[in-house]
Structures are given as C-alpha cells and as structure tokens.
C-alpha cells in the first residue's frame, strides 16, 4: 500500500462508492432493497476511508475534485440510509372496524367520496407521491 499514490486511493474509493450506488439503484428498480443495508453502509464507509486516505496522502487538484464527488455520494448514502425508517404511528382504523369516510378530489378535479364505493370491496392505497 506504500506504493499506492494518493490519487489512486481516491480513484479506488470513488469507484467503490459509485459501484455501491449502481448496485443500490438496481435493487431499487427490482424492489429487492434489504431491510438492513449494513453491507452497503460498510461499502460506502470503506470507499470514504479510501478517499480520505488518498486526500491525506496528496491526490492533486484532479484527485481532489474526484474525491469530493465520491465523498458527497458516499456521505449522502450513509445519511439517507439512516433516515429510511418511518415513524411508528397507530393507524386510525383496525381490522374489523368500519373504513373512515372522507372526501377528496380525483385526477379530474371532481369531488369523490369514499362512501360512494359502498357495496363493493376495494383497496385503499396511500402512497407518498408521483416521483
């Protein structure tokens, strides 16, 4: 490792971070995200360590820019991975209880009442948004 330049360490570290992000994105698309991404967090941490090590050794201006990108990408993953958990909140209805009636606008802007579905089973799905 004494013969490995600071620039090379930055490149290795950034490559590790980008490879981790590529793999993670594939898991998002395939709906196979692990509930505990410890391996990915470790991978990103390892990449960050390599980048910092390389910068300490001296990676030059280009290495510095590349390393900055790697640090931001790796740091973002570690930060967002700690914010995946949703708060534990008690749903206002339980199995066996009546659904709560409400009014909302549909995609045409028309008023819609959940009670209009009376007599038919349905699945009500709350989701975060269109993105």
């Amino acid at each position, binding site marked *: 490792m004494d013969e490995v330049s600071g620039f090379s360490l930055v490149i290795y570290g950034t490559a590790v971070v980008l490879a981790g992000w590529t793999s993670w994105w594939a898991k*998002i698309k395939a*709906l196979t*995200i692990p*509930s505990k991404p410890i391996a990915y967090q470790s991978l990103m941490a390892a990449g960050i360590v390599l980048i910092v090590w390389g910068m300490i050794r001296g990676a030059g201006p280009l290495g510095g820019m590349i390393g900055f990108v790697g640090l931001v990408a790796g740091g973002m993953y570690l930060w*967002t991975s700690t*914010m*995946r*958990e*949703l*708060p*534990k*909140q*008690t*749903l*206002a*209805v*339980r*199995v*066996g*209880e*009546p*659904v*709560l009636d*409400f009014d*909302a*606008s*549909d*995609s*045409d*802007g028309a008023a*819609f009442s*959940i*009670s209009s*579905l*009376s*007599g*038919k*089973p*349905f*699945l*009500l*799905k*709350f*989701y*975060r*948004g*269109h*993105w």
Partner: protein
Amino acid sequence: MVTISPDTVAEVAAMKSKLGFGMRMLSDESLEVGALYNVKVDKAMAGAPGRKIFRPLVIPTAILVDAEGIVRWIDQADNYQIRSDADRVLAGIKQALPV
C-alpha cells in the same frame, strides 16, 4: 382500487395518464385524509424534483375494505424504501376476502 397521495390534482392526473392506470386516483394535497387515518408524517424526506426535500408526506399504507365497508386487511410499510410487492398484496387480499 383507490389510491391517494399528497400530490396535487395535476400531478395525480399526469401520473395516471403516463402510467395508463384505470383506477380512481385521489389528491390529498392538504393531507387531511392522511391526518384522519393517522398516516401523515410531518417531516419526511422526499425525492420529487422542484419540491422541498423535507415535507409532510404519508406512510405507505394499503387498507382492504369489504363490501360492507369493514376493514379486512392492512399492509403498512415501516421503511419508506421498501415497497409492498404485488404477490404480497394479492396474498393478503385472497386471505382476507376469499372468493
């Protein structure tokens, strides 16, 4: 199936058109319905371009209701990155509402 989200009516319409969904899709921009069902999260991280990163959103939740208006099955995420897959939802529906 009826979906509901904090998206605006325009965003819901665009998504419905883009994906060709035939189901009823509702807008809960003010999050009143989210608050009613207690799935509203006051500060959540979102990835929508052009919008604030942290804003009120909802916990992804599916509620199966029978023809009498009674809740028969509930599926709620505890992690915003993990989505319910179709097989899991269909299995829950079949178990709760056997034909």
